[in-house]
């Protein structure tokens, strides 16, 4: 599966829309996502909780152009209602994907030193 980790067009669109608020949006996303990833790890065995966190995480990562991360969150949200699914493996994948995109956002953030 060929999938983009970070869509640069989305970021340039956001920069245009947010103007001066853009760095703050990146900060918020990084901080928020960190919390979501930790929450997913804690809720590993609670399908219902996983679905809710995944739903929310999917929305924000989609908005910020983390295409693959959003896709994985969506899978987790959908599969959390299926009894036989291996949700733990999905959580690990999300964890891994966030670890991968996090430096990309941080370097984007570096461009705007306050």
């Amino acid at each position, binding site marked *: 599966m060929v999938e983009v980790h970070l869509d640069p067009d*989305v970021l340039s669109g*956001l920069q245009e*829309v*947010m*103007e001066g*608020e853009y760095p*703050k*949006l990146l900060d*918020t*996303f990084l*901080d*928020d*996502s960190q919390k979501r990833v930790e929450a997913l790890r804690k809720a590993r065995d609670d399908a219902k909780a996983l679905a*809710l966190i995944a*739903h*929310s*995480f*999917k*929305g*924000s990562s*989609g*908005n*910020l*152009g983390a295409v693959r991360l959003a896709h994985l969150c969506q899978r987790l949200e959908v599969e959390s209602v299926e009894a036989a699914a291996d949700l733990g493996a999905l959580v690990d994948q999300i964890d891994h994907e966030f670890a991968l995109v996090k430096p990309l956002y941080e370097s984007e953030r570096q461009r705007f030193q306050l």
Partner: protein
Amino acid sequence: MSALAPVLEPLTVLIAEDSATDLLLLSTIIRRQGHHVLTASNGVEAVDLFARERPQLVLMDALMPVMDGFEAARRIKQLAGEALVPIIFLTSLRQSEALAECLDAGGDDFLPKPYNPLILAAKINAMDRLRRLQATVLQQRDLIAKHHDYLLHEQRVAKAVFDKVAHSGCINAAPNIRYLQSPYALFNGDLLLAAYTPAGDMHVLLGDFTGHGLPAAVGAMPLAEVFYGMTAKGYGLTQILREMNAKLKRILPVDMFCCAALLCLSTQRRVVEVWNGGMPDGYVHEVATGKRTPLVSRHLPLGVLSAQAFEDRTEVWPMALGDRVFLLSDGVLDTADANEQLFGAERLQQVFAANREPDCLFEDIEQALAAFCGEVRDDVSMVEITLQAGQSMRATGPLYADSGQSCPLDWSVGFEFRAETLKRYNPLPYLLQLLLEIHGLREQSGALYSVMAELYSNALEHGVLGLDSRLKRDAEGFAQYYRERNERLMRLNSGYVRVQVQVAPTVTGGRMSLRIEDSGPGFDVEQVLARPLDVDRLSGRGLSLVRQLSSDVRWSDGGRSVCVEFCWEALA
């Protein structure tokens, strides 16, 4: 309209979203678009903020902690009441159940993630248009409701005022009148008036103005005033009709008029005089034979023709005691069934034919109408008057204008009414007014007017016009008599009626003698006075009535001159 078009008026937009990233993104976009933003991170906060700040539009995430977006939407819609507060759900929900749940909760639209600022602006504008539309509709609905209340209030006031005028007559007091009319008939343009003349005759008017509502009611007031004022003063139908027609012609717009039937029922003379302009056929019901004579509309309604062109010709029909006159409005005949078939005159005739108990005629007609169309309309008016004996003569109260301090007691006056005047002028109301200056006579005003009216019409019809009273023996002759009367009067170019009034004080009070002379051939007084009472009443000259009512009656000059006297005691 472009999505980026500047907003007309900044809105306050509430955003409920638990993801801090999305909340920041969305609120920045919306603020950039010129709106004021309120933010909440769960349903409970959203509902609280809504109650406090009353934003005009809500962007709501579906899944949130504490209280989800569905429940929050339901509560916000409830708080908003009738006003439209659009709720746009922020969701990329794929399953149709979830979308249905959003709609069920009161959601008006959806916005999928990732957000597109252009689509968001377009949706906000579209929702704002809907919101304004709803606000306008509500505003107009309230305005209409307010106007409706005003209208009802005005109608109540108008009706109260009108009832005071309308009820100054005898419509509810007279024992021989039955009528059926909706309480709001006035606003259908229907009008029913009745009053006694000074001689104790009864005038009845059933009218129907064009149109509905207040426009139909405005003409009723002046019409009622003319009717009551002139009836009380002793004017006959033709003068009253001319005055009503002229007044309505003057005050009503061209396309408004009043269909009317006007009656004068005289127990003393056992006749009914009728003018019908535009009302459906009424009937004289001869109880002894069961015969119903139609009272046909011969004229244009009131308020159409100029005074010059107006036709005041009336018809006169004999009546026995117990006979009835029936009038109705077109609401009866125009009652329609489900197929727009009209009830019509023929079905009414069938009800007449089937009617066994005359007192139940109205009920029979109402039942027939109800059976025909399912219900009786509110513009159905009917009136029935029975000719009854012993209607007392009314004192004409409103005529006295002075304080009683100045009462002339010793005077005389003479008039000569010649052909041109006799044709179109009725001097009786004027004479009565004059004689009622004598306070002592006021008690007897009814008798005085009756005697004057009898003697004047004798002088005019038998004297000047030379009509033979024996014509009036039967109904046909009766009609012929009144036809002749009108024709001869029209052609009249000579002749006179003279009226002499002498008032003198006596030891105990006063005496008024009234002499009436005519230019006719005279008559055999002895022979006429010898006739039995009943013959006299219908085909005679009403002389027994005159003798009954006045102190003294004398004829002279071969029946061409008659003198009556009225005496009174001095007032204490």
